[in-house]
């Protein structure tokens, strides 16, 4: 799946869908079906890290400046980060 551009055809699927490259799960971008995305407002953020801890996907990352953001390749748009962020620094915005 990793050695070509675009998605594999049925003929290219490995027997039994075995993944032969260890540690390649990150190459499978699982956030494609997200309906909403989290948008951070760093004016309100107090850098408590609650969003980082609660994200069930583990896709919230801390930037060098100490603020947080989600990796949109894996974010499912579940809204848990926004729900848990008590200063209300995260807004869920409809995906276009």
């Amino acid at each position, binding site marked *: 799946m990793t050695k070509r551009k675009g998605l594999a055809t*049925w003929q290219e699927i490995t*027997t*039994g*869908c*075995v*993944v032969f490259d260890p540690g390649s799960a990150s190459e499978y971008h699982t956030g494609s079906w997200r309906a909403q995305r989290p948008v951070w407002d760093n004016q309100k953020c107090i850098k408590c890290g609650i969003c980082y801890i609660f994200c069930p996907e583990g896709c919230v990352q801390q930037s060098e400046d100490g603020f947080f953001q989600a990796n949109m390749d894996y974010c499912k748009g579940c809204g848990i980060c926004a729900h848990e962020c008590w200063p209300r620094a995260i807004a869920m915005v409809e995906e276009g």
Partner: protein
Amino acid sequence: MAKRIGMEVAVAVAEAVGQCDIDMAAVYPITPQSHIAEHLSDLVADGKINAEFVTVESEHSAMSAVIGASGTGARVYTATSSQGLMLMHELLPIASGMRLPIVMGIANRAVSGPLNILNDHSDIMPQRDSGWISLFAENGQEAIDLSIQAFKIAEHKDVQLPVCVNIDGFQLTHMVEPLEFPDQELVNKFLPTRVPYATLHPAKPVTMGAFSMSDYFTEIMKAKDEALKNSKKVILEVWDEWAKMFGRSYKPVETYKAEDADILMLTMGSMGETAEMAIDGLRAKGVKAGLIKLRLWRPFPFAEIKAVVKNAKKLIVTDRAVSFGGPGGPVFSEIKSALYAEIQRPAIYNYIIGLGGRDVTVPDFVHMFEKVIADKANKAVDTYEFWGVRE
């Protein structure tokens, strides 16, 4: 030629599996399969075969254990029946989806409720779409032969799919039949060591059973369907090789006096032999009756079915299971869809027979033929009837 010995068929199936150099078996006992489990564990305990027999607490665990073991590259076997197969149901498409060449013996038995321990095909029918190759044995010899062949078919590089061998519970499993065991050296030649496409091993990590979203799921299902359809070619090759090595030939669709028959009957499993006796009786009276015996249930042998029925005027399909609220028995539905586009096809009748172990005798089969012959206006065509139901 090897000498024939008298043996109970379930025990013989375990003996035959013991000839296949299995590495591991996990079998949970259930009537009428238990003698397979017992005898296989005896073979291991007595040191007659060098395999691991994993005792498990349920059929769900038995199937899970063989899936894991098969993933390591081991040659594995399991067997079950009825409720046990229903409990395995969840795992069957996983085994086929992971393309693991597991071999399973099924001592076919009615599913509850009400609780019934006797033979019909209501356990295998709900597994129809699970992606397994499904073979039906008609007698003890076939049960042995198919069990050995199953490993070769399953493990073939162009197949890599699980195979189940259906053996009618009691009617076959508990019969003592004269059986010919293939010579061990020939079996070793016929069945080389498994070459897995991947193995679970810490030295070379792979992921089996990974997650897939809608972006890949369709392609994966298509690949599995193609693999199952393509397996027929390998099944035919394996049967050819078997015939050359052991002198017994196998076909996806067997026939008995069918070539010139006006009226055909189709059976699957052990009832074929009883139906043959009915046909002999009818032939003696001048009725051009014949029999079709379906050995390969999945992949379904469409071309072979079309070829054998094309000159018949009427076809009686017997089913050993009910598709409640459906168009008739499951085999009937399949045969009808196989023949739908044919310009020349027989009028098809369906009798649901032998449910929960009810005996179907030679006179019963004769009566089915007579009833269909008497239906001159084809009134009962495309309908189904519960044979012998009290009303």
